[in-house]
């Protein structure tokens, strides 16, 4: 293995396999003076979906592409449907668009809740924290497999998933989302069931996670309000997290480039609920999809000479490549690495609390987790409105036909951030299919200029205590991105 030569006392740590992340992940760390000096992120799983899609009937992308991931399958399904709709020159019906929003939102909210309760918080129930004042409560609520909050979440999540069952037949790997809308109509009685389901989820979260109405969380606007919440409650998992974060200084770790991007989530009459755009150098900006390119320099992929826009992209694995250290390509926007996810969506949308947090301490572990909890509340409130906006007697799905040749892109937001499918067809068959998933952005390797990906940058400076082989700070930082490794390399 080629390790860059290090200073005196530098050592190398390989952290992985990680549990409580979706899929397989390995991180190589160079450690010196009790801190991470450089990090190299390896996505060790490759399947080749882009190659498998080539040569097929375009409609079959609706079945194959979602199977990239059993966790983000609805988002993958929506991205494929949007790309095919672009090819067909159609858009979904009003009902289809709203129902699709409900399906994607259900999956995204479920993912946020799973991340907080089952993946992120159990780290604070580890024996290493036994001396902290909050430990007993953290252990009671979040110890893996036993914590009361974790168990309650599983029940609330199963309830929430009834929305996918009702509107899409099943989850994971739903099939209902089509280019022209959805295959399942909702009748007035279905609307009542959906509202009842959302009501049950709201009640569960307000009782235990937040200890307060969703609206109060959604409207959080200043860091002082968070301070007050930590100091005086209401009691709940959220307050406990605020206490832990303050004690451990989660606001000071895991900062990457503070450069964010979103493809825009949940389209509506007046644009998406969370708009597309960028936020960098503390300024909002427009998203230019033409400026996206993937660099293969440190990916074990051929075509390394220059970065490619996805419409010119390729996925040809090169197992003999010695420079590459991952299967993950390095997507860049205008040549720069960008972070994506709930924090990016909220900051780009101008949510005042998250803007203030990023302004003060940057995109930290703390900010990423708060962003998910705020977004969960905001999205659930929006979902209740969408259910009421469905019109059972209006059309649900517009028919369309694929042209013999053409190309189109489907851009959306999965729970973990920006997801794009770039499709090209020739002779009525798929001739190119390129996918950039959220964690492809976040966990990308270095590019030709040697610039590390967002996680690689976020890990620099993380504390490594004497004797630690899987440093806790590294685990918190990695999990704060809520990586989905099966999407990353597909």
């Amino acid at each position, binding site marked *: 293995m080629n390790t860059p030569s290090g200073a005196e006392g530098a050592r190398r740590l390989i*952290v992985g*396999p*990680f*549990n409580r992340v979706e*899929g*397989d992940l*390995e991180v190589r760390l160079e450690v010196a003076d009790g801190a991470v000096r450089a990090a190299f992120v390896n996505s*060790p*799983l*490759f*399947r*080749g979906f882009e190659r*498998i899609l080539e*040569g097929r*009937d375009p*409609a*079959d992308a*609706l079945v*194959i592409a979602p*199977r990239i*991931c*059993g*966790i983000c*399958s609805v988002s993958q399904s929506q991205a494929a449907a949007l790309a095919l709709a672009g090819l067909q020159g159609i858009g979904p019906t009003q009902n289809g668009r709203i129902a699709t929003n409900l399906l994607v939102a259900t999956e995204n909210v479920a993912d946020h809740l799973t991340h907080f309760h*089952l993946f992120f918080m*159990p780290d604070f129930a580890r024996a290493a924290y036994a001396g902290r004042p909050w430990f007993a409560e953290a252990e009671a609520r979040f*110890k893996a*497999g*036993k914590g009361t909050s974790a*168990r309650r979440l*599983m*029940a609330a999540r*199963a309830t929430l*998933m*009834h929305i*996918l*069952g009702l*509107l*899409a*037949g*099943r*989850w*994971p*790997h739903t*099939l*209902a989302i*089509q280019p*022209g809308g*959805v*295959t*399942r*109509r909702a009748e007035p009685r279905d609307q009542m069931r959906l509202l009842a389901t959302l009501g049950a989820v709201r009640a569960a979260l307000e009782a235990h996670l937040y200890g307060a109405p969703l609206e109060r969380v959604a409207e959080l606007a200043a860091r002082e309000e968070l301070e007050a919440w930590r100091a005086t409650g209401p009691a709940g998992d959220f307050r406990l997290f605020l206490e832990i974060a303050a004690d451990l200084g989660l606001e000071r770790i895991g900062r990457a480039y503070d450069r964010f991007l979103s493809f825009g989530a949940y389209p509506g009459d007046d644009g998406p609920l969370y708009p597309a755009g960028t936020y960098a150098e503390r300024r909002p900006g427009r998203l230019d999809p033409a400026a996206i390119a993937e660099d293969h320099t440190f990916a074990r992929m051929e075509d390394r000479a220059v970065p490619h826009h996805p419409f010119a992209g390729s996925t040809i*694995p090169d*197992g003999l490549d010695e420079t590459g250290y991952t*299967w993950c390509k390095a997507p860049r926007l205008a040549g720069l690495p960008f972070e994506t996810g709930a924090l990016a969506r909220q900051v780009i949308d101008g949510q005042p609390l998250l803007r203030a947090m990023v302004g003060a301490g940057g995109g930290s572990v703390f900010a990423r987790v708060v962003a998910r909890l705020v977004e969960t509340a905001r999205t659930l409130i929006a979902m209740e409105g969408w259910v009421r906006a469905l019109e059972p007697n209006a059309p*649900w*799905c517009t028919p369309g036909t694929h042209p013999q040749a053409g190309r189109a892109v489907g851009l959306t937001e999965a729970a973990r951030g920006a997801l794009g499918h770039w499709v090209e067809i020739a002779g009525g068959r798929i001739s190119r299919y390129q996918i950039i998933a959220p964690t492809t952005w976040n966990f990308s390797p270095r590019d030709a200029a040697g610039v590390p990906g967002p996680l690689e940058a976020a890990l620099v400076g993380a504390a490594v205590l004497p004797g630690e*082989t*899987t440093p806790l700070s590294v*685990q918190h930082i990695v999990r704060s991105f809520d990586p989905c490794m099966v999407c990353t390399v597909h």
Partner: protein
Amino acid sequence: MAGLETFYDVMRRQGITRRSFLKYCSLTAAALGLGPEMVPEIAHAMETKPRLPVLWLHGLECTCCSESFIRSAHPLVKDVVLSMISLDYDDTLMASAGHQAEAILDEVMTKYKGNYILAVEGNPPLNEDGMYCIIGGKPFVDQLKKVAKDAKAIISWGSCASYGCVQAARPNPTRATPVHEVIFDKPIIKVPGCPPIAEVMTGVITYMLTFDRIPELDRQGRPKMFYSQRIHDKCYRRPHFDAGQYVEKFDDEGARKGYCLYKVGCKGPTTYNACSTVRWNDGVSFPIQAGHGCIGCSEDGFWDKGSWYARLSDIKGQGFGIEANADQIGLAATAAVGGAVAVHAAVSALKRAQHKGDAQ
């Protein structure tokens, strides 16, 4: 120390009450299609049998099987089953991490040699010496062989482990290979589906743990209790098929009336699974109920059989249950309505032509 621990001990330790335990036994009996007279037998087995550990490995996969599994219908069933297996090794859910997790794997393998169940989600890719799926620095196929060596039996979760699934679709870039083509000397129970239904997964694993034996399997190695009938056999839209009433495109008049989805690609007539009886997400629905055809995800090779949105051209010889293929049934029925017949036949010819193209 835990060598003689029974399932019942484990459940009590997890805080499950006696009352809940008995309820669980009834639910299990019902899920397995056993009569109420079996409830005491299940209870007795759980109280006296030492707990069998389950090691759950992930290869090349998308985690959809785990996702399906952890939302089994009844919270109690899920709690109990999770308490039976998650104590051991599952890298998505377990508490420990990294080398600590690997150590647990080794410990269980040694302590329960020849006496643990290996559950596999995903499959090993064999190209490039297995480097497309590296677990803990080694190819997954090595880990699979190592853990399989001393297992009592293997459960192949989902279509990846059972058959290959979409990652093995043409051109199968990584040579993703089902478990039974890598492991030859152990009983393998296939539980196909992409993903399998949660209740089917918990049903199979509960049966094996409770009765300490493998459920009766069909020729392909699937448990008969869940895979002996076609989706079509128990589909609630079946009367519309028999009457020749079809959805022609999504959201048309036929779709609004709940007609048969055969013409928009439904593979229900050739797919063996329990979707139309057990259903999904707590029995709420299943794909056909959501207006989309079955894609046949529990059948071997479903990924390379031509488009999912083109209808089956010939389902004769699949033991259809009626002495004709679907075209003839459709023809006979639609003839009474008139007009639609020519279109129906033309579509069928087109489909056959396409199929030839696909097969090259």
